């Protein structure tokens, strides 16, 4: 997309170049946008990435297969459980491991709880970007903390869970886990209702978000955008439905889609997705069977990661992470280390269309458009 600088016949004008970030609170981390402005209007926007590059892929190629599991937590540090999930799926596909029934249910519960965490937090931070300074974020944090407490009780850490293993999960959930999840399921809709009363019909929010940062359907598909961003543009594409990974085909749930593809739709699709996640959780805690949580082969692999050697070949495991399609492409040469390890990070690919969405809007709009993409710099820069 191109934007023509408006020539004024009477006044001599020129474009102004501003560097937004990398140390700017609205960029959700260390992300920099080089913006060219015509007054307040954005003429050109060049994203600059790589400030948080930590060599994730090369590190993983130099350690055992399991060794990079704790590093995947640090990709998208808000939802570490889903990162573990995608990596475990990829390696299980490669090694042909079976996952016990109970572990599948635990995985789904964890993934959906993570989705609640991520979307709640995103909505809070989006409003922070809009200027509703910290009140919605703290309401979101309060609810998120209850879920993080569960993660801590089960996996040992609030955010860096490192809970999944190839062929299952590290350890069975605690005895009071299921009752606590039930309590969250009972309370969360109330919180969402309250959150929506606070926000969804708010005129200021509507004025700021509607018809801003429109992402047309065709562009979204062509750019490879995935997740709530794509669905807000009206494409009903959800990998849980398309790929049938894990046991998601047992759960009936709907895929909410937006119409306009603007910031408001992206916000609202996430609210609706949380309600669908609660439905999945309800069914999962009702049906969860007893049994082992890790297969015997997986347990041996977890006890001695050096001796875990998948056969030669390659595999691509993908899941519907809260931010979009998270995929791990792993190649094995039969040794104890991955030969190639690649991460398809959703927020990185969603970020590539930032310029197309921002052109012609004001600087303040660029901030909320960036917020609505839902990036986490740990995953963008890896």
């Amino acid at each position, binding site marked *: 997309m191109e934007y023509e600088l408006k020539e004024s016949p009477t006044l001599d004008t020129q474009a102004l170049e501003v560097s937004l970030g990398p140390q700017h609170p609205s960029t959700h981390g260390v992300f920099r946008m080089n913006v060219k402005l015509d007054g307040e209007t954005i003429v050109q926007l060049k994203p600059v990435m790589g400030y948080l590059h930590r060599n994730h892929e090369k590190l993983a190629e130099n350690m055992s297969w*399991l060794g990079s599991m704790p590093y995947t937590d640090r990709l998208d540090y808000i939802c570490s459980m889903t990162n573990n999930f995608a990596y475990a799926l990829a390696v299980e596909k490669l090694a042909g491991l079976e996952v016990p029934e109970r572990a599948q249910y635990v995985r789904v519960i964890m993934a959906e709880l993570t989705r609640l965490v991520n979307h709640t937090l995103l909505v809070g931070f989006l409003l922070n970007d809009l200027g509703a300074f910290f009140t919605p974020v703290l309401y979101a944090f309060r609810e998120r903390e209850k879920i993080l407490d569960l993660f*801590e*009780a089960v996996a040992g850490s609030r955010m860096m869970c*490192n809970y999944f293993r190839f062929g299952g999960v590290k350890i069975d959930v605690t005895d009071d886990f299921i009752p606590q999840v039930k309590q969250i399921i009972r309370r969360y809709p109330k919180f969402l209702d309250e959150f929506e009363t606070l926000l969804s019909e708010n*005129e200021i929010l509507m004025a700021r978000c509607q018809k801003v940062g429109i992402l047309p359907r065709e562009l979204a598909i062509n750019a490879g955008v995935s997740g709530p961003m794509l669905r807000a543009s009206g494409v009903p594409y959800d990998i849980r439905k398309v790929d049938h990974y894990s046991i998601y085909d047992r759960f009936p749930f709907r895929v909410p889609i937006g119409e306009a593809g603007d910031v408001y739709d992206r916000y609202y699709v996430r609210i609706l997705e949380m309600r669908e996640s609660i439905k999945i959780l309800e069914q999962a805690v009702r049906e969860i069977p007893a049994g082992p949580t890790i297969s015997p082969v997986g347990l041996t692999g*977890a*006890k001695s990661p050096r001796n875990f050697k998948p056969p030669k070949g390659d595999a691509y495991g993908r899941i519907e992470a809260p931010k979009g399609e998270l995929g791990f492409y792993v190649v094995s040469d039969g040794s104890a280390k991955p030969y190639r390890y690649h991460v398809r990070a959703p927020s990185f690919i969603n970020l590539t269309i930032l310029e197309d969405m921002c052109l012609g809007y004001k600087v303040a709009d660029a901030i909320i458009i960036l917020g609505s993409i839902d990036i986490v710099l740990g995953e963008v820069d890896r």
Partner: protein
Amino acid sequence: MYGFGVIKGMLVTLKNFVLSYFTKERLTTVQYPEERLPEKERFRNFPFLIYDDKPEDLRCVSCDICAKECPPKCITIVRDTDAQGKPLKRPKVFDIDFSICMNCGICEEVCPFDAIFMDHEFELGEYGRFEELNYHKEDLLKSAEYFAQIRPTDAALIEAKRRQKEAKGAHPTSPTPPIPPPSS
């Protein structure tokens, strides 16, 4: 009516403000140094080494497995030798660099001798960044009673397992766990 949505939102904030004085659910602040949340049993922070009775006879046999499996390679182990230079089943140096350790808990999982565990201690402020955070064997040693106190469920399981092993070890034919060769 235009502006009604804003007013409804304001009512929500007002409700939160007022109810925060009355319900625990709306005011979740914990005044940290004075008040503390109960510790979760599986909570993990940096690892520590465990000894059974005396600090001298620690469970670690310096097999080097944790050092090899540690993803960020923060563990350094040097095997102890006796006067003749014969390798002994105990570490001479056991260092964990806490500035590198990322609390993943893999060392605990891979240890075949139940010698290293993740601690609950998290108040570990230091004034320096390098030598101060490199914890040596003496700093890492903690008793088995301490472990049983912070993680009763795991401690009971491990104790039962060890007792079973000991009963087997008394049998003359059962092989003792192999000692891996000293690492170069």
